[in-house]
């Protein structure tokens, strides 16, 4: 039994962020952030624009080292692991970037197929089948040979989700999933997130400031406060709305209305 398996059995959270400080040079964006994400939970990191939500995601995904603190996946310290180990951990993580980040020189099928080609020994025919299946899950059957530039914003996000799910990850990250989408497309994406969690028990981490989406999908959340530069609330967003006494949390969750 591997160390990871043992720790899962001991009930460690799926992801744990411990006392992390985010900074660009000498400018501290956020400090002392600690939270845990349970397996199969939809966890939302919320906060105003520029509060460091995306930077926190970068740190959790190995794109930027933290100034201080640790990130644990299944109890394994991510930033203290070797690059190979980190890559191995990330094979279990799918990411939907804010703008989709589909590789523009490849077709949708090639975009979804590349992670499979790189990380599995599947035959071309098997990969083609999986690609079709993943694209059908996100409602893009028949668009295999389209390039990202030929698709609408909503379709790009869905295709990117198809790519993020290519390796059947245990964890899915969404960076501002509803950004740039019309309300209907945003709702479709929210439903898709809920559906994935229900059917695959995937742990979902969403970076968002879209209240409608937050209230629709979140099980648990943290609030990053731009003013105090730290995490000021944690819990279900609806519970926070009714119980939180923090002015900034209330103001954020009520779109600036005074707290009751």
């Amino acid at each position: 039994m591997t160390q990871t398996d043992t720790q899962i059995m001991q009930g460690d959270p799926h992801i744990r962020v411990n006392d992390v400080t985010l900074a660009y040079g000498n400018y501290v964006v956020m400090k002392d952030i600690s939270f845990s994400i349970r397996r199969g939970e939809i966890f939302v990191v919320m906060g105003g624009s520029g509060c460091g939500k995306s930077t926190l995601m970068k740190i959790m995904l190995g794109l930027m080292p933290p100034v201080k603190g640790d990130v644990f996946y299944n109890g394994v310290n991510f930033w203290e692991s070797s690059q190979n180990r980190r890559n191995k951990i990330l094979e279990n993580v799918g990411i939907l970037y804010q703008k989709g980040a589909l590789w523009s020189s490849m077709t949708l099928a090639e975009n979804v197929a590349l992670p499979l080609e790189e990380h599995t020994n599947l035959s071309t025919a098997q990969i083609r089948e999986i690609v079709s299946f993943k694209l059908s899950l996100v409602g893009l059957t028949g668009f295999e040979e389209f390039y990202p530039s030929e698709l609408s914003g909503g379709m790009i996000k869905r295709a990117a989700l198809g790519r993020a799910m290519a390796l059947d990850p245990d964890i899915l990250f969404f960076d501002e999933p509803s950004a740039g989408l019309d309300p209907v497309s945003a709702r479709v994406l929210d439903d898709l997130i809920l559906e994935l969690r229900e059917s695959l028990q995937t742990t979902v981490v969403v970076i968002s400031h879209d209240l409608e989406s937050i209230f629709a999908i979140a099980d648990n959340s943290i609030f990053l406060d731009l003013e105090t530069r730290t995490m000021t609330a944690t819990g279900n967003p609806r519970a926070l709305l009714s119980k939180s006494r923090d002015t900034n949390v209330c103001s954020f969750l009520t779109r600036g209305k005074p707290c009751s």
Partner: protein
Amino acid sequence: MSIPEIIQQPPGTISFSTPAKNTLLIELSGFWEIGGKSPSAKEVQDRIDADSTISRIIFDSGRLLSWDSTLLTFLIRIIDICSTSGISVERDGLPRGVQRLLTLACDNLDKKQVQLNVPAESFLARIGEGTLKIIISSAEMLDFIGEACSALFRLFMAKARFRGSDLALIIWECGVQALPIVSLISALVGIIVAFVGVVQLRIFGAEIYIANVVAIAMAREMGALMTAIIMMGRTGAAYAAQLGTMEVNEEIDAFKTLGISPMEFLVIPRIVALVLMMPLLCVYSDIVGILGGAVISIGMFDLPVNQYYDQTLNALSITHLSIGIIKSAVFAVLIAISGCFYGMHCGRSASAVGDAATSSVVTGIVLIVLADGIFAVITNAFRI
């Protein structure tokens, strides 16, 4: 009355009065619009300076016909002047819209002031910061070269992973598609060398040696150098822009988080393609340049074709050709490294992509000329 007189709008004006002791009333009238004539805040400043008893300013906008940002900037300037002189400004007499916008603008100006209060850096601090940036940038470049070497090693060990179709496409783009511009520039360089040379050699009656001059110049220097400069401007800049755009669109982050090395997947095919294509383009450039020189020498200066041909063959040696080809391979690495480095270290905005392309071309050309100089010293030292 002529039509222009009918549509002409009365300009914005101000007049002063003192309805009460210590109070200055500014009456605003006419059209205060962008493009029209309106008074300067300096008139108000002069009026305040002339009467030191003024401690309050009020407005009357009853005769104000129209206003836009012109009036607002005028009023903000007055508020600014009054705040430094300790004079209170009452906005009640202004139109309601102006009052609201002034409140909004003044609030934001106060916030801006907070940010501006950060002490300015001294000249020495800026020099220090600039030097540190150069050191950091050089360290990043060395780090990038190290990573590229490691990825190339993996390529030789058949462990590097990239798509063959990508490599083929890049070879097509930096090889075949570059032929027209390389042809044009090389032919022109050959023509220019021949033209300048033959005029000088004619003085000594040695016109036929122009064949040697053109052949050696193209094979040793001009073929490799001109191809490199063309490819830096064309392909190197394209690499920086392509990778820079991928950085802006988070496509490179997507590679990293999927455990795919962008160095192996994006940079190595570009280095390999250029290293394969540049020597070929250099040989092609040599041939076209020599032909260009021949056209001028034979066509304009009536040198015999057979003699020109023989002289060219005598002048050209494997050594000359090899030096050009080796140089072009080295230049290829410099072009690819320069283009890819700036692309991969591009910022996250559209202007950053332009900056990356510009920096890559400038750095690339400097490196190419520097490397050419080093080659000249080495070949001279070894008498090659």
